[in-house]
């Protein structure tokens, strides 16, 4: 663990600090607790509204003032998955799954050995390498877009999911290297030494000693890479058209139909966001570490 998280006897002090609270502070604490609840509800309100609207019929979704108690229906979802626009969202959803899952696997295959060479058995100047990876993440994607487009045109890779997989792998690799390194440095040196003294080879050490310790870290890294790939719009929008179109691109083209469409759009937004919400809540504890590229735990 890092010295940032490890700040002495927190649990003990926290418990001790809680006990002798005076009643005056308790009332203040109650008010602050209620405030926190109100703020939390305000932030989640748009999502609840989106959920409620997606379950209304188009006519009761488009009322002013809003009709909260209107009858619930799955019509919006049914229309999203088929009849409404004439185009099924399944190919786009499948493309998104393919691009996100395969790029995540590729990222892990590249990042775990790299992180190993930057932590457990470090190369010389490993900090420089680590910061090189980080610096690539800071360059704006849009500035590399044109050469990639022209290359794809020449190589006949436009509208091909393989191109997106490669790009998403490159996009997430720095995050994964930083995250995986921060998990691998937590493997105690003594255990590794003991394993090698007992005659365990590299493969066996990795499999039976390192893997069990870092597997939660691998899972968190995978979930975060999955989220970023799933969310990506700019590359997908420019480099795909019909065959390799991903779910976010499908969403941008969804609001072209005439008439009332609010319930459908909300249903679409929920369906497309669902994998990210699930992955995000699953990785909740490690989310900070991933978002701060492993700098904060």
């Amino acid at each position: 663990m890092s010295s940032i998280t490890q700040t002495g006897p927190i649990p003990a002090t926290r418990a001790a600090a809680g006990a002798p609270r005076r009643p005056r502070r308790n009332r203040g604490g109650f008010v602050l607790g209620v405030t926190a609840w109100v703020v939390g509800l305000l932030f989640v309100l748009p999502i609840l509204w989106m959920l409620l609207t997606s379950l209304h019929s188009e006519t009761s979704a488009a009322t002013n003032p809003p009709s909260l108690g209107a009858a619930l229906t799955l019509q919006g979802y049914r229309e999203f998955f088929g009849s409404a626009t004439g185009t099924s969202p399944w190919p786009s959803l499948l493309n998104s799954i393919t691009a996100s899952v395969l790029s995540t696997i590729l990222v892990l295959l590249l990042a775990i050995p790299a992180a190993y060479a930057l932590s457990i058995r470090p190369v010389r100047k490993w900090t420089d390498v680590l910061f090189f990876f980080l610096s690539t993440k800071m360059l704006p994607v849009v500035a590399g877009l044109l050469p990639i487009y022209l290359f794809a045109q020449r190589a006949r890779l436009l509208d091909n999911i393989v191109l997106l997989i490669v790009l998403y792998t490159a996009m997430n690799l720095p995050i994964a290297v930083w995250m995986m390194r921060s998990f691998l440095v937590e493997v105690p040196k003594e255990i590794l030494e003991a394993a090698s003294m007992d005659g365990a080879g590299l493969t066996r050490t990795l499999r039976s000693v390192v893997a069990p310790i870092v597997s939660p870290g691998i899972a968190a890294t995978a979930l975060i890479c999955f989220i970023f790939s799933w969310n990506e719009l700019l590359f997908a929008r420019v480099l795909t058209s019909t065959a390799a179109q991903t779910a976010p691109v499908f969403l941008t083209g969804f609001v072209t139909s005439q008439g009332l469409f609010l319930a459908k759009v909300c249903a679409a937004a929920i369906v497309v966001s669902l994998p990210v919400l699930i992955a995000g809540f699953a990785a909740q504890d490690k989310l900070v570490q991933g978002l701060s590229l492993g700098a904060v735990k």
Partner: protein
Amino acid sequence: MSVAVDTGQSSHGAVAGASPQTDRRRRSEQWSRRGPLLPALIFTIVVTQLPFVVTLVTSFMNWNAYYPKERGFAGVTNFRRVLTNVSTRHAILTTIVLTATVVLVSLLLGMGIALLLDRKFFGRGAVRTMLIAPFLVVPVAAALLWKHALYNPQYGLFNGLLTSVWRLFGSNNPPQVDWITSQPLIAIEASLVWQWTPFMMLILLAGLQSRPLDIIEAARLDGASSWQVFRYMTFPHLRQYLELAGLLGSIYVVQNFDAVFTITSGGLGTANLPYTIYQTFYNAHDYGRASAAGVVVVIGTILIATFALRTVSTLFREESR
């Protein structure tokens, strides 16, 4: 960008007069260390660094896909066109305003919320989960949600709530606002603040929870007020986390494309640089000018990134101490 893979020289300090055999063994030992790193490193260089080199070259070229015969060296013409063009200059300004507003407002909100969540109260876990949720809505979906379900002047939630509240007080004449048309940039900023506040909150909360609480409790016992504890103990500790959150947030928000593309399609004066570059390249096919604008964004980002890297490396050094 320089890549720091060492070549030659042993990691254990070359001993003068070492036999060729130990030298060879040392070298092979180094390559076995480098081996696992190389695939990731080479992949990253090829996919992320080469395109930027091409962009840099193209930015000095006269290259429009509509006029393929006029391709050639253009010197700094593209940069002059980018920097003198009114709409690009406006896009640069929009990018700065958008990024600064979103990052500062979500930092402030995030800090307030992190302070609220740092104390124990009933259902803290549930509130934390609710607060993370906006960050976990796909950006395009979030933009669509704000544009259609919240901002829509006829039946969006905001105007709907105005109607309900006015009715409550017996008025049939509620104010109805066309949110996006009247305040296009603020409309985009609000949706982004909603998505980025959780990000700031998470990093700041992690910072708060790493405070040395025993020292703070000691200060309290010595009679320090809550404000004094915040001002002289919490805030200085939190500063590097504020910097980190702000800089990482800036790097992501500077690049924002999804919200601008979805909510206004760059109209009403909201086109930022990424959107402008996308248009110059995707619709106008002016590759030279798009590349020059891209180089401008890179230079701007490098300015932020230098500070960001410094902050990360400070945290990093503390961690490995």
